């Protein structure tokens, strides 16, 4: 029981920390990575809530799919921005 | 047996048809439709004579002919508004006067208008026809509403005829003034009509269900009226009603202070002036009071007011006539003054005297105007008396008839005016001895006598006597039969009309039966119950008082005083103006001169009032455009301004949208949370 509480508290703190990191990060790429962390820690919560399948999906779809997409987008837009800034 | 009274409407309608004909096809007719008018008025005249004869034969009529609006309720009362005829001695007499004068004016117009080459003749004759028709309709009206309606139509016709020369600036303005000022009086009259109908539920003049009869009964405590305004005593209310109706009379009969339109109305063609002054418009006011005298006799206050207004107007107008330079202007003020006498008579209880003066005045004033018209023809439409002189020998017919009219106007024995004016003064005197207000009226009337004689003969001398003062006066245009004919007829009448009512002679000599008019109006030969001079005398408030020598002595003294004064005035005029080359003596009047020349500044006052009204209207307009419409437009501006503020919310920056959206949601949350108590 106590462990459970500690675990909840710990992962809640992790989730929130990562979440805050996402919104506060200076760099978009860092933010994307932090988002991955946050989502993963949410997946841990799911496991604790006996929703292992959801947790799996969370990691698969989000961390495996969404995050990659975001990363792509970051790369596509930022590189061009830099070249534009440079060229300008 | 032919019922002559069923032809009474024809008396009214004949001139009306001549109006339609002249208006519709007048320009295709010879003389611009004049003959139609002459035929129509002649027909009316003959019918009127026949009616007069029938009335003399002891018959009278009080009939409702046509329901104008079916009975509708006002408050508790049902009222039917109808047209009808009331033919009694008074209206029969008036019919004859009006049709005769109208006929003569039509004939005279041939000379004055046609021969002078005026344009727009069909319009002129149409106007004359409608004018006669309206007046005749007014005369035969059997109720106050019908009287009012024709009264108004008379006003319309005066507008049309005074403004006949509409291409010049003056006449339209004068016409407007005539209509407006009389309309102002009619406003009170209309209230009076409505008040009478509301009070009595009827506006009939005659019969037991007529409003004078009902009022009499109610005052005597034998009946009640349908309505009085809350808290007002019957006597007071009837006085108010009487005064309201009087408003119309004051306007139409050009009594102080609504007389100002009449001198301006001289802008109209002279025959029209004759018609207006002698028999139609101006006479209408006095006739109305006579018509409903049974009502006025019940309210002493009204009578006193009438008398005082009359006496004052008589003197007041006469003084202004003294300084006028134009022929028709003098006559205009004399008209005002003479109608003042009639009002004085009516106010003084001299019902017969008033009708008598109305009759004689109709003839001699028509005569004077037509005579003036003849002079104007001769003078090529120059009216300034200082440009005339010496016309006596050039146009004798005009001169002698004009002289007869002038003598009548001045009240010189034995011309018509003497008899009637004398009787008025007598009535005012005997009744006034017990009534100080009335005595004041009498004194003013008496004072006006020498003034009248003075300005009348000033006019005569300046026009006809002395040396011609201009080229035109030396060689005036001649006039034809159509001018001389009417003048002659009227000249004779001006001499003889007085003899129909020789009351002083009767009283002094004790000859019974020569006071024909008294007997006539007293239903001696028949008439309508309740519409007799005796009845009026009975219900009236006056008692007679006498000077030395009782009745006969008073008659003699009164007649002597007034005749003496008239002669004095005449003599003064003779002294001043019957010289080869008269000069203006107005300078001797000093400061009064300006006042008289400017008609006591009453015109100025009224113009000032009109301008102030326009100022108020202008203010109202500014208020309307600025404030009221401003509010309306302001609502629109504020809305649009609000809209332009609201749209600023839409900044185009999506982050701000997100912020606003969140704030909105939070606000909603707070609102609901507080009301729902979620946070407790």
């Amino acid at each position, binding site marked *: 029981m106590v462990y459970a509480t500690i675990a909840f508290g710990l992962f809640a703190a992790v989730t929130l920390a990562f979440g805050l990191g996402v919104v506060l990060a200076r760099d978009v790429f860092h933010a994307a990575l932090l988002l991955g962390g946050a989502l993963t820690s949410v997946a841990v919560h799911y496991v604790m809530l006996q929703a292992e399948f959801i947790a799996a999906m969370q990691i698969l779809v989000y961390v495996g799919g969404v995050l990659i997409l975001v990363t792509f987008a970051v790369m596509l837009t930022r590189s061009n921005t830099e070249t534009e800034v440079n060229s300008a | 047996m032919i019922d002559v009274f069923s032809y009474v409407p024809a008396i009214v309608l004949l001139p009306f048809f001549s109006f339609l004909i002249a208006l519709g096809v007048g320009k295709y007719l010879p003389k611009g439709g004049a003959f139609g008018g002459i035929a129509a008025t002649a027909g009316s005249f003959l019918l009127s004579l026949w009616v007069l004869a029938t009335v003399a034969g002891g018959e009278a009529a009080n009939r409702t002919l046509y329901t104008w609006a079916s009975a*509708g309720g006002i*408050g508790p009362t049902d009222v039917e508004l109808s047209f009808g005829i009331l033919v009694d001695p008074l209206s029969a007499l008036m019919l004859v006067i009006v049709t005769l004068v109208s006929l003569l004016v039509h004939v005279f117009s041939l000379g004055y208008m046609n021969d002078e080459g005026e344009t727009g003749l069909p319009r002129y004759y149409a106007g004359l026809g409608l004018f006669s028709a309206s007046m005749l309709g007014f005369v035969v009206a059997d109720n106050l509403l019908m009287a009012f309606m024709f009264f108004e139509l008379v006003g319309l016709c005066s507008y049309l005829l005074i403004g006949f020369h509409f291409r010049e600036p003056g006449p339209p303005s004068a016409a407007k003034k005539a209509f407006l000022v009389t309309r102002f009086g009619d406003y009170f009259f209309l209230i009076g009509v409505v008040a009478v109908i509301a009070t009595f539920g009827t506006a009939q003049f005659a019969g037991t269900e007529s409003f004078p009869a009902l009022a009499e009964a109610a005052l005597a405590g034998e009946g009640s009226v349908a309505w009085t305004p809350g808290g007002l005593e019957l006597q007071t209310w009837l006085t108010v009603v009487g005064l309201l109706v009087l408003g119309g009379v004051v306007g139409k009969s050009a009594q102080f202070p609504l007389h100002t339109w009449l001198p301006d109305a001289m802008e109209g063609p002279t025959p029209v002036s004759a018609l207006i002054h002698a028999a139609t418009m101006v006479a209408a006011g006095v006739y109305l009071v006579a018509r409903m005298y049974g009502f006025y006799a019940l309210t002493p206050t009204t009578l006193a007011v009438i008398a005082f207004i009359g006496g004052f107007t008589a003197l007041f107008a006469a003084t202004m006539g003294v300084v006028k330079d134009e022929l028709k202007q003098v006559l205009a003020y004399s008209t005002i003054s003479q109608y003042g006498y009639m009002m004085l008579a009516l106010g003084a209880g001299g019902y017969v005297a008033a009708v008598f003066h109305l009759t004689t005045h109709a003839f001699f004033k028509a005569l004077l105007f037509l005579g003036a018209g003849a002079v104007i023809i001769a003078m090529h439409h120059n009216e300034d008396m200082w440009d005339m002189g010496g016309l006596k020998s050039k146009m004798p017919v005009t001169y002698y008839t004009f002289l007869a009219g002038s003598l009548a106007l001045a009240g010189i024995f034995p011309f018509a005016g003497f008899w009637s004016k004398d009787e008025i003064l007598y009535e005012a005197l005997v009744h006034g001895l017990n009534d100080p207000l009335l005595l004041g009226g009498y004194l003013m009337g008496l004072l006006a006598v020498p003034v009248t004689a003075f300005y009348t003969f000033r006019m005569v001398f300046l026009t006809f006597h002395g040396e011609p003062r201009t080229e035109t006066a030396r060689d005036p245009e001649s006039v034809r039969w159509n001018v001389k004919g009417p003048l002659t007829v009227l000249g004779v009448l001006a001499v003889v009309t007085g003899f129909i009512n020789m009351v002083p002679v009767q009283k002094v000599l004790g000859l019974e039966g020569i006071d024909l008019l008294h007997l006539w109006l007293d239903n001696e030969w028949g008439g309508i119950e309740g519409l007799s001079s005796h009845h009026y005398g009975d219900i009236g408030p006056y008692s007679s008082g006498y000077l030395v020598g009782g009745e006969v002595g008073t008659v003699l003294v009164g007649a002597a005083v007034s005749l003496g004064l008239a002669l004095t005035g005449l003599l003064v005029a003779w002294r001043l103006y019957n010289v080869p080359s008269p000069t203006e003596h107005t300078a001797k009047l000093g400061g009064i001169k300006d006042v008289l020349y400017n008609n006591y500044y009453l015109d100025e006052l009224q113009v000032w009032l009109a301008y102030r009204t326009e100022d108020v209207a202008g203010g109202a307009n500014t208020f309307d455009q600025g404030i009221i419409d401003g509010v309306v437009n302001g609502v629109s501006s504020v809305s649009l301004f609000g809209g332009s503020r609201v749209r600023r919310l839409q900044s185009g920056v999506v982050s701000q949208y997100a912020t606003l959206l969140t704030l909105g949601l939070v606000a909603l949350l707070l609102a609901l949370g507080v009301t729902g108590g979620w946070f407790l």
Partner: protein
Amino acid sequence: MIEALIGFTFVAALLVLLAPDEWAGRLAFAFSLLPFVGSMYLWSGFDGAGNALTGGDIAYATQIEWLEVGGRTVSWFVGVDGISLPLVVLTTFLVPLAIVSAWTPIDARQSQFYGLMLFMEANLLGVFTALDFFLWFVFWEAVLVPMYFLIGIWGGPRRKYAAIKFFVYTNAASLLMFIGFMSLTFALGDSASSFALPEITGAIADGGLGTWFGISPDRIAMVAFLAMFLGFAVKVPIVPFHTWLPDAHVEAPTPVSVLLAGVLLKMGTYALLRFNFTMLPDQASALAIPIGAIAVISVIYGAMLALAQKDLKRIVAYSSVSSMGYVILGLIVFTEYGVGGATFQMVAHGLISGLMFMAVGVIYNATHTRMVGDMSGMADRMPVAVGIFVAGAFGYMGLPLMAGFAGEFFIFVGSFSAPALPYAPIFTALAMFGIVIVAGYLLSAMQSTLFGPFELETDYDVGPAPFHDVAPLAVLLVAIIVLGVAPDIFFEMIRDAAVPVVEGVTIDG
């Protein structure tokens, strides 16, 4: 029968809309005669008695259920009684004349113009015959649409402003009125099962108003009365809601002004009579003094404004405000002569103001100005038209034996001693003073424009007006005189329908 009348007019409007411009005017005139004949037929066979709203016999009544909403039926319910028939006749009479008077001034997009005129006529007929609230309201609102176009497209220089102002202002009022009426019907609850006006009137008279959301019946009735009164006051218009009127009139082309003054203003007074004064007489009576005061203010203030104007059309427009004040006075006094006279005055004013606007229009056609200072002596150049103008002006001043006098006099007689209005004599006497002011401004305007030496700066000759301009004027004048001499041809049936209205009121004391 009424359906045929309205339906035909709609079809005619459509046909004219599709007709080529050259024919449109003539065609519209020909078509518009048929409704007139139809209304004459209605008149000839009129067998109604009493007031349509208070259980009287309704002539030519048709009732077909249309839809049901919120448990109440809406139906196509039309019919005429003594109050609506004269207005129907007025409408069908004025429209052909207005169409003829448009032949000269309207020179662009004719087929649209005449089509809209007929479309408006159809809706006006609907307004005066509808006896179901929703049906009535449809027509009532639908009148605005053609009017908006008519002013906006063919109007004067400031036509757009005037059109939008007219449109928005009167619509705002309609909405207010709608809400007022609806509160009333809902407060009736189950007492009324439809929007048929007779049923609603009857239910209110029988005390069917119930408490509605905690508001007492009296208060609901009063609020509804005020809302409807304000709504109609704009339409009438009553001071101080009148400011759209001069703008609309001045900018509208002549034929449109004719209909605007002749018929559209009557919609307001007609509705006031039908709704406020017939359905809620006691509320009206309770407000007698303020309403009487408003009437008097409308009369005097409107007349004063007219006095200050320099534009002939504006003069006539403001004088309409003044004339409508009389109508309000006639309605509030609740006497047969008052209410009947008010209705009669609607017809009379419709004819007279129509005549005046047409006459001003004829002069405008020739001079292209309406400003008093710009011309003088027009009588010299167009005697017939000016003659009729003068006659019409005198009609406006309430000259006896013309229709205007009859209407005004009935109202005055009815109101002077009316028990329903405290201080009635004073109100009446004050209102009567309007007849002096009206004479003042009309005579002044005529003096400076029609009379005096001819003066007008134009580069063409000003000649007599063409026949088809003058003919409608003459027809109107004849109608005015006929109604003035024999008011009973309408007044009798009006009175018959007005009596129940008068009897509906309870007067304290």
